[in-house]
C-alpha cells in the first residue's frame, strides 16, 4: 500500500522536468484532458515552484500534515449489530458533539456509512501529531470513544494498550492534503475570534 509506483520528485528537479513528467503521466489521458493540462500548467507550475520544499509533512506515526493541521482517515468494518447501534446513537445526538470540543485539537470530524452499512469512514482534521492526538481522545472523551467505536470489528477499547495499533491498522494516509489556514490551530482560531470581537467592540465604542 505504501509502496509507490511513481518516483518522488527530486529536490533539484526543474520546473521543465516536472512539466515533462506531467505530460508523460497524462500521455494516455483523453485529449480534452491534455488540453486542460496544457492550460492548467502555468497555475500548477506556480504551485510547485513557489515553495521549493514539499508542503506536506508527516503527522507522526501515520497521516500527513500541512503546517499545524493534520488529517486522520480511518475506515473500519462494522461488528455485527454495530451499524444499527451507531446509526441510532448518531440520530439521537442529532448533530450535537460537544464531546468534540472537549478534545480541544479537533477542527472537524465526519462519520460516513459505507458499502451498505458494512464499513464506516471516520475522518478528522486535527492539530499537531498523531500520538498526542490519540492520547487526547483517550484521556478526554474515553467513554464517548467506546460508545462509538465499540461498533467496529476488533475494537480493543480506548483504555487498551492496543488501541493505537488498532487505529493505525485501519488508518489510510492521504496522498494529498490541503488546508486553507495551515498556521491556525483550533485554540488559535478561538483566540482570534475573541480578539476580533474585542476589536469590534472597541471600534464601536470609539465611534459611538
Amino acid at each position, binding site marked *: 500500500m505504501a509502496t509507490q509506483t*511513481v518516483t518522488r*520528485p527530486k529536490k533539484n528537479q526543474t520546473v521543465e522536468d516536472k512539466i515533462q513528467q*506531467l505530460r508523460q503521466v497524462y500521455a494516455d489521458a483523453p485529449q480534452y*484532458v491534455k488540453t486542460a493540462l496544457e492550460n492548467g500548467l502555468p497555475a*500548477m507550475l506556480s504551485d510547485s515552484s513557489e515553495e521549493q520544499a514539499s508542503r506536506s509533512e508527516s503527522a507522526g506515526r501515520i497521516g500527513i500534515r500541512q503546517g499545524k493541521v493534520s488529517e486522520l482517515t480511518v475506515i473500519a468494518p462494522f461488528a455485527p449489530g454495530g451499524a444499527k447501534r451507531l446509526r441510532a446513537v448518531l440520530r439521537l445526538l442529532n448533530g*450535537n458533539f460537544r464531546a468534540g470540543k472537549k478534545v480541544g485539537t479537533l477542527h*472537524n470530524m465526519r462519520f460516513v456509512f459505507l458499502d451498505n452499512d458494512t464499513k464506516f469512514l471516520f475522518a478528522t482534521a486535527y492539530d499537531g501529531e498523531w500520538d498526542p492526538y490519540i492520547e487526547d481522545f483517550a484521556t478526554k472523551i474515553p467513554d464517548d470513544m467506546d460508545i462509538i467505536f465499540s461498533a467496529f470489528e476488533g475494537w480493543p477499547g480506548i483504555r487498551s494498550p492496543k488501541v493505537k495499533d488498532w487505529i493505525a491498522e485501519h488508518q489510510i494516509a492521504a496522498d*494529498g492534503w490541503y488546508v486553507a489556514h495551515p498556521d491556525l490551530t483550533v485554540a488559535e482560531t478561538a483566540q*482570534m*475570534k475573541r480578539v476580533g470581537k474585542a476589536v469590534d467592540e472597541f471600534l464601536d465604542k470609539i465611534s459611538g
Partner: protein
Amino acid sequence: MATLTQEKTRSDQDLTVEQKVQKLRALYADAPELGTVALEKGLADLRREMAAPPRRENAGRLGARQGQVSEFTLIFPFREGGAKRLRGLLQLTQGNFQLADKVGTVHDMRFVFLDNDTKLLFATAYDGDWDPYIEDFQSKIPDALDILLCNFEGFPGLRNPSIKDWLAKHQVSADAWYVASPKLTAAETRRLERVGQALDEFLDKIGK
C-alpha cells in the same frame, strides 16, 4: 430512503430525553461489554447532548452542514491508468494546492487511495451550500478539475451539464458532522487573521 430517515428523525425528536436514554440502553444491550459500560458512564454527557436543540443541518442537494461549514465526501472508482496518473500528479505538485485558495470557500481537502488503488476518497470541508460550491469550482479552476477528475470512471467533463448529477452519484453524505468553529467561513478566518495582525502592530506602536 431519505424520507424514511427523516420521518424517523422527526419521531426521535418527539421523544423525551429519558425515552431516548431507554432507547440507547435497549440498543446497547447486545453491544460488546465495553460499549455497554461506556454508555452508562457517558450517560450524563449524552443526556446533555440529547437535550440540546438539533444542530444537524443540510448542505443543500447532499451532505451535512454545521453553521456555515459543510462536508463533501465522495468515493470515485478509478478508470484504467487513473490511479497512476493521479498519484503522479499529487507527487509532482508536492502537496501544493494553492489553486484551492482560488476557490476561496475550501477549508480543507484530502485525497485518499482506497482498496488497492481502485477507488479514491475525496473529502472536503467548505462554506455554504452544495450548488454554489460546485459552481465555484467550475468557474474558478475548471482545468485543474478536469486534470483531477478525468482519472475516474464516467467523468463527463467539468463543463458538461451532467457534471452535478455525476458528482451527486458518487457522494456519500455523512451521518454526522462536527465543526469546531461552525460560524467561521474561510473568508471570515482570513479577515480575522488580518485584524489580529493589525492589532499586534497597533499594540507594538503604542507600546513603544
